């Protein structure tokens, strides 16, 4: 059974978002990394880019598939996890900590309340 970060909120497309002061940190869930398998390449957005909720911000590629990853909330990219360029497997090992993908400044903080709670996401992911 895949693990879940109780402090994060989720999208049904398997991204997580967590508050870190005023900014939001985001990545993909343990369930998502497990379904993808060994991740071999990650493409992340340019810092400063503004994206809407649900817009693709990058690509996570495993030996099985390449998948777009989507903005959990609208925001402006503040930083990306550069470590992943050399070590994409970090997303497999630590999807909620060392394998974070992006940090952004939310442009519509109210979107947070529309995200799935850990309990709701677990129920949704369990259906697959």
């Amino acid at each position, binding site marked *: 059974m895949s693990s879940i970060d109780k402090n994060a909120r989720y999208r049904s497309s398997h991204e997580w978002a967590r508050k870190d002061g005023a900014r939001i940190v985001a990545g993909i869930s343990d369930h998502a990394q497990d*379904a993808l398998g*060994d991740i*071999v*390449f990650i493409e992340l957005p340019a810092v400063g880019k503004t994206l809407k909720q649900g817009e693709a911000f990058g690509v996570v590629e495993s*030996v*099985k*598939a*390449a998948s777009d990853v989507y903005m959990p909330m609208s925001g402006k990219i503040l930083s990306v996890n550069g470590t992943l360029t050399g070590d*994409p497997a970090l997303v497999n090992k630590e999807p909620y900590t060392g394998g974070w993908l992006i940090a952004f400044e939310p442009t519509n903080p109210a979107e947070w309340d529309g995200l799935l709670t850990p309990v709701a996401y677990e129920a949704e992911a369990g259906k*697959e």
Partner: protein
Amino acid sequence: MNLIPEPLAFELSSPGRVGVSLPTCDVPVTAVPASLRRAELKLPELDELTVVRHFTRLSQKNFSIDTHFYPLGSCTMKYNPKANEVAAAQPGWKGAHPLVSDDRNQGAIELIYRLQESLKAIGGFAGVSVQPAAGAHGELAGVFMIRAYHLAHGNPGRVKMLIPDSAHGTNPASCTMAGLTTVTIPSDAEGGVDLDALKAACDDTVAGIMITNPSTIGLFERNIEKIAKMIHDAGGLVYGDGANMNALTGVLRPADVGIDVMHFNLHKTFSTPHGGGGPGVGMVGAAPVLAEYLPGPIAVEKNGKFSMEMPAKGIGRMKAFNGNFGVLVRAYTYIRMLGEEGMRRLAESAVLNANYIKVKMEKVYPVKYPRRCMHEFVAMGNFVDGIHTLDIAKRMIDYGYHPPTIYFPLIVPEALMVEPTETESKETLDAFIDVMLKIAEEAKTQPELLHDAPHNTPIGRLDEVAAARNPMLCYRS
């Protein structure tokens, strides 16, 4: 199969050895300036016999439809009748020069014209172009045509292409190459397009939809007419991905259900070589609304005389000369051999074969969307703990089968997509089913057999993760 691993040509190299002797130079020798010369060019040095043996042995390791069953889902790896090759090898076709004038090239242009007419009839289209050289190339042409239509109608803001989440990955790629943005439309519980999500996405920025029918999960999209109407009402156009046309020839004309533009994969449906470089052809057909935007040149007949003409508002060329002409000869030969009745039987047999395997396999291999399939179906390979679809696929190689498409489409976990095509006998299908059931049994009783597979190949299980993370693309001694 020859099981001895074949060394690289570099490893067979011996300093100073040559395979050719050049005649004595009878022109003045001029030295290439040092600035243009490389100090060391590491080419293998081999004699003729070593080269011949090296490549002959490599060719014997080839896996092909002429040697084995090849149920690669979504790829329609059907047998390519040898009659196609006989026709394409006729000196008149083979020797035709691409720069010859139309009046001296009447036979070749007439063949293109007849092939266009055949595909117009099969698809129900008003116009067809033989230009694109592959399926995705045809998609790109279609998306350019849709874009050209909207620009010509004063709608530069129509830049959004809707694409179901079961689509081929080439669909969003084609849109991106054409400068459009893509919006993914989710599937409903039955594997069809989610109509509510589609409705919500239909606004005045919609350029169109790219839809594959049957979809990549091998299901007929029953709402296709409804979907086409929603898109048309929103001012958009409908692109049909013809990759799965093998399920429909002679049964359904895509234009009749609202498809405005579609590509045909001659290297799938019309039995021209596929894999190993093809080359392919992704002919594009268009309904009246888009026919004048087709890429050219197009073969035209006037008073019994044939010529190649550019459509007035066309998007231009996609390929030099008349596309991959040799492939056109093969496809036309095939269509004429089958005839109208044969076209229908082709699709019916393809669908029957897929359903036959599905019914026998689904007792063991779960199928996410269990309703009757079209020319292919998607099973799942995760019915035993610790065994993945990849392990099953690798084990199939040991039994002499090309693995099906795996991990696609993405909406089915651990997908294993089987497409037998119409050209296989019941005996071949039965033997394949027996092996699949045997592998399922092995998964339970001897899982290590699957984990370590393949065993009967020159090289065993490759470390695909290491290869992707640390690719070494050049030979280093």
